[in-house]
């Protein structure tokens, strides 16, 4: 196994913990993802894929257990430190894209740069560069509602890449886009892997099986298979 970039140890995630309606979303998850790996988290709907991706991307906290990023225990990090990790190391692509409806494409891509003090000119230059690379040169000033699902997803990918992160995580990236966009997405991931990035995708779509070099299969919140 190469150097682990993310490791989980006995991670549990319960919602409404201790209450009658408690939901055990994840139970005792142990996994390891190494640098430059293309990891696929698989499983049926409701198996806990999104929850696991949220935990390892630090946008949510586990109920129990440890998550280590480059062997550093994330539970010891403050809210501000976790924000900085997300800003510099992790690029997130959400299932429903989570674009800000009132911002045009280039601003949606560049807003993670605002707290870094990057000037407007530089923000625009960098977002344009990525948007052009993703074939969105004609959509730079379009608002999300003026774009197709595939285009919105490419904007979300551009936003995830704007800070040149080491890890790119995507949640169900093929669920809201057409076949052509899926092709573009796979090309993008392949390209990113070639550049040494770590890619973690949660999806029930078997299309990723040909591209990934590590698979984790979840069922009812349990990790039942790691390849």
């Amino acid at each position, binding site marked *: 196994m190469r150097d682990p970039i993310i490791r989980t140890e006995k991670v549990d995630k319960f919602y409404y913990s201790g209450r009658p309606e408690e939901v055990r979303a994840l139970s005792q998850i142990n996994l390891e993802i190494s640098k430059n790996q293309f990891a696929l988290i698989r499983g049926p709907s409701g198996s806990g894929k999104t929850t696991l991706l*949220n935990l390892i991307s630090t*946008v949510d906290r586990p109920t129990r257990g440890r998550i280590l990023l480059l062997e550093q225990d994330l539970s010891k990090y403050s*809210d501000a430190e976790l924000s900085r990790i997300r800003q510099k190391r992790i690029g*997130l692509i959400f299932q429903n894209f*989570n674009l800000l409806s009132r911002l045009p494409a280039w601003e949606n891509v560049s807003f993670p740069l605002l*707290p870094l003090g990057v000037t407007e000119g530089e923000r625009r230059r960098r977002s344009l560069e990525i948007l052009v690379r993703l074939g969105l040169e004609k959509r730079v000033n379009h608002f999300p509602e003026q774009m197709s699902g595939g285009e919105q997803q490419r904007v979300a990918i551009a936003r995830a890449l704007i800070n040149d992160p080491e890890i790119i995580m995507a949640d169900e990236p093929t669920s809201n886009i057409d076949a052509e966009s899926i092709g573009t997405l796979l090309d993008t991931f392949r390209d990113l892997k070639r550049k040494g990035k770590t890619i973690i995708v949660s999806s029930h779509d078997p299309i990723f099986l040909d591209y990934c070099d590590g698979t984790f299969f979840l069922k009812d919140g349990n990790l039942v298979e790691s390849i």
Partner: protein
Amino acid sequence: MKDIMNRHLNLLFTAAGNLIRNRGRSLVVVLCLIAVLFPFISAIAISEGIKFQSLISVEEGADIYVTLDHYGSNAPISLQHLERFQKMEGVVKVFPRVIGRTYFADRLATIVGIPAEEISRSIRLVQGKMFREKGEVMIGKALAKVVHLQTGVGFTLSPNPSKVFRVSGMFDSDMTIWSSNLILMTFEDASEFFQMRGMATDILIYTRPGHAQRLAREIMGASSYRDSSEPPLRVQDKSLVKRYFQRGFNYKAGVFTALFTVAFALAIPALLVISGFGQAERKKEIGVLKATGWQTQEVMEMVALENLIIGFTSAPLAILSAMVWMKWLNGAFIAQFFIAEIGLMASFPVPSRFLPLPSFFAFLFAIVLTMIGGLYPTWKTATVPPAEAMR
């Protein structure tokens, strides 16, 4: 250092951009703030305006006012005291005055009986002539307009309808309130009207500079040795009268501020509700910002800047609205709280003064209101895990 500066500038421009993008919500919040703030600014301006005019009139008035003290209230004083006061060392002049109030065409009017030559410098004759003869009166321009009186017209007043007055002239004054309710006449006419011959409501004493306090003490001292069958004298010098005025207006302004504070307190939850419009979308937005690397403090700074912009926009607009309200609507609805019997629309220019301190408080209130409305929900959202905020 440059990055830090750029970061704050980025957040400022983003805050401004957010307000423009959500212009409907921003406009509602600004309008609500103006609605809350401008009555307060107007009221304080009116209070200060009246106080200012009143203090000028006190300043122009006598140095000592003497009445009888009837269980702590002013009571009419006999004219027999005049001669004694005139002979006192340091006295320049002494004259009696009758002041009383009566209803005139359902309006409360103030009658002042005073020697014509002793009328305040602030009063300007604008029509007719000064009262000289028995039964002649000079009436404030605004009052004359309301009760439809012209120079030369005769009229009677309710408590003593047997006495007929005739308007000899009309006056205007820098003290705009005076022109709204004052009827000036000779001392004799006023004492006859109020049926208090041989008495005055007060005796006005003008002194040489520096003698007022000593004379006030001497008059008081002499009063304590007099026949105990007559109530003691009540002596008020200029500084005491000033204090009474100030206390009276401060009390009124205080009552208004207390009422306003209640309204202000009610406005906070209303503003919370208003600023909560689109909160679900805002919650998701904050979640996305946090998920893409923004820190809680950066989100808070952006929202605080939004609120600052709202506050700094609302407060000057509220001050401007108050000025417009005073100039074009003459303090309608608000002035009546400070000036009795003027109704919704005053018939004279309501005095007002816009001072820096109330304006500063307007800014402060606007910012406090928006901060309470904006920062708390933001902090609550920004401190939960982003996944929860985005859900």
